[in-house]
């Protein structure tokens, strides 16, 4: 059983998605929106280049929260996120989190996913069973 206390930093994670990660995520998820896989299309709609799927980064925050609770996928009960900055491939993503509350065997964790100063996921809250 994982031990989490109010104020703890969770271990978090760091990952650098390679150039073709959005293609693999598109295949795995079924989301083939061309803004994620086609640079010409992305630029034509005003983006600097292809961008990461928001739900891929949410997947990383789910992974960090689940691992903080001991790794059993059943422990993640709720995850709520806001997508703000756009994520870019070939740039390191860091997921960090702070335990906000522990009550009745459940912990609430505030989570952020960022590439440098660009917070791609913020105001994220995970609820895990301990």
């Amino acid at each position, binding site marked *: 059983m994982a031990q989490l206390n109010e104020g703890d930093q969770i271990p978090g*994670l760091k*990952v650098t998605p390679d150039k073709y*990660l959005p293609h*693999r*995520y598109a*295949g*795995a*998820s*079924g*989301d083939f929106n061309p803004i994620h896989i086609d640079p010409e299309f992305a630029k034509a*709609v005003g983006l600097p280049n292809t961008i990461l799927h*928001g*739900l*891929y980064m*949410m*997947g*990383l925050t*789910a*992974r960090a929260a*689940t691992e903080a609770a001991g*790794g*059993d*996928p*059943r422990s*993640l*009960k*709720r*995850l*709520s*996120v*806001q*997508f703000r900055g756009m994520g870019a491939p070939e740039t390191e993503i860091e997921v960090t989190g702070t335990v906000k509350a522990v009550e009745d065997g459940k912990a609430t964790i505030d989570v952020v996913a960022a590439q440098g100063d660009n917070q791609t996921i913020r105001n994220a809250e995970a609820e895990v069973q301990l």
Partner: protein
Amino acid sequence: MAIKTEAVGKEWPATTYEVGKEKIREYATVVGLDNPVHLDREAAKAAGYRDVVAPPMFCVVYSAPALGPAMFDPEVGMNFAAMVHGGQEFVWGEPACSGDEITTTASCQEIYEKDGKGFYVFETVSVNQDGDEVVRGTWTNIVRGV
């Protein structure tokens, strides 16, 4: 121009998805999950699962197909060129395992205007073959300049 809100409360036809072991492996690998309960049948059973278990966020794979017709419905009338996925919430219940048949129904919860932006909030509810709720999703799309 006022935002169209007549689609609030509308529900779209359900979709059914059968969860498969290799699809779970594909998803788990992409997000870097190496917990054997997602990859190995024996490890999953030893941990108390019926079969290889999907990572929680695998729910996008089986619930998104129900959402497609809702998002593209002319009655909703979202301008895709100016749309971003603004927020997302999932609340999980019974785990989804390989072999499960999951049925998802999408509905429109809210449409409103704030600071010149349109907010379109959809809900998906997914249940398994036993009628147990697997996940409930709240999908918020934001359209600039409505």
